[in-house]
């Protein structure tokens, strides 16, 4: 499907001075196979993927590292601090991620509750301040609270990433009001992170005007991750274009699509 140039004409997503044509960022966890992951990422059109920092397994094959499957020359790797429950831990993981030498970017995630994986906004803000001071480009996972989002922006985050619903829940965009409010109030890019379950979730989320979406489970756990990745790519672009085009008004009274004049006698 060729996109007529004047239609695709949407400013690229710019985060911390780096430009991305794709507004879809995907995770690399939980795929049934590395082959599924690689093909799904390709089908998604994503130019940035998140990766986790973990111990090398000294007893298993050496093939497990993600760098055996993804080439940092071709796709931008965004290390995350997933699994951290304190600011101190998150800072430690961020530094280890940066030490790999790929970039000074980090997806900051400080979890406050194991059952919902909701962020600890107190520790997230604390860690964000430390990391920004150390020169990191911080993309901060947070909840749908606009007050916290504004604080994270003030702390110097390069992007703020509110959730649509809990990580891995697939419940979609539960609170469009707050997401829209966050987008309206912040200057920095707003990337919705977590909760998107299917293409229409991605589409309606982009229609709120946000700058992009990050997802993982919706692809990894789809019946056909590659096909769903392609669906998500189209859903994100569809939502973005619909937002830019401006939707028709909703009304509870019907309006005919064909002329009422010129009817036969």
């Amino acid at each position, binding site marked *: 499907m060729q996109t007529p140039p004047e239609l695709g004409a949407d400013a690229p997503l710019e985060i911390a001075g780096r430009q991305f044509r794709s507004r879809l960022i995907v995770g690399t966890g939980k795929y049934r196979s590395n082959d599924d992951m690689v093909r799904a990422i390709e089908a998604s059109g994503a130019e940035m993927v998140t990766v986790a920092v973990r111990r090398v397994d000294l007893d298993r094959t050496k093939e497990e*590292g993600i760098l055996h499957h993804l080439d940092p020359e071709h796709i931008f790797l965004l*290390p995350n601090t*997933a699994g951290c429950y304190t600011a101190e831990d998150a800072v430690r993981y961020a530094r280890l991620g940066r030490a790999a030498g790929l970039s000074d970017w980090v997806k900051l995630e400080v979890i406050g509750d194991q059952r919902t994986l909701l962020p600890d906004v107190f520790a997230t803000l604390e860690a964000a301040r430390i990391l920004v001071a150390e020169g990191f480009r911080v993309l901060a996972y947070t909840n749908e609270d606009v007050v916290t989002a504004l604080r994270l922006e003030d702390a110097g985050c390069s992007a703020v990433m509110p959730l649509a619903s809990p990580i891995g829940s697939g419940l979609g965009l539960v609170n469009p009001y707050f997401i829209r409010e966050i987008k309206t109030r912040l200057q920095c890019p707003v990337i919705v992170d977590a909760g998107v379950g299917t293409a229409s979730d991605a589409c309606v989320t982009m229609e709120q005007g946000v700058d992009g979406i990050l997802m993982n489970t919706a692809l*990894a756990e789809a019946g056909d991750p590659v096909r769903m990745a392609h669906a998500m790519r189209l859903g994100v672009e569809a939502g973005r274009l619909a937002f830019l085009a401006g939707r028709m008004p909703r009304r509870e009274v019907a309006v005919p699509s064909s002329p009422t004049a010129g009817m036969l006698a």
Partner: protein
Amino acid sequence: MPMNVTVNGDPRSFASGLNVRELLEALGLRPQQVVVEHNREILDRARYESTPVVEGDSLELVHFVGGG
């Protein structure tokens, strides 16, 4: 005479006098493959050669894995 070192949380023993690069080799790891935290300090790759591992040291050897 061997020395005891903690690597990724597990006690391991190595021949004394190894430096970090040699320890990685002993574990079958290529330096550019991993990031090394040596006694809670991140170790620059340039210093693997010049950094000795001694009895009781603790090392964390990490890399990137799939994650969201």
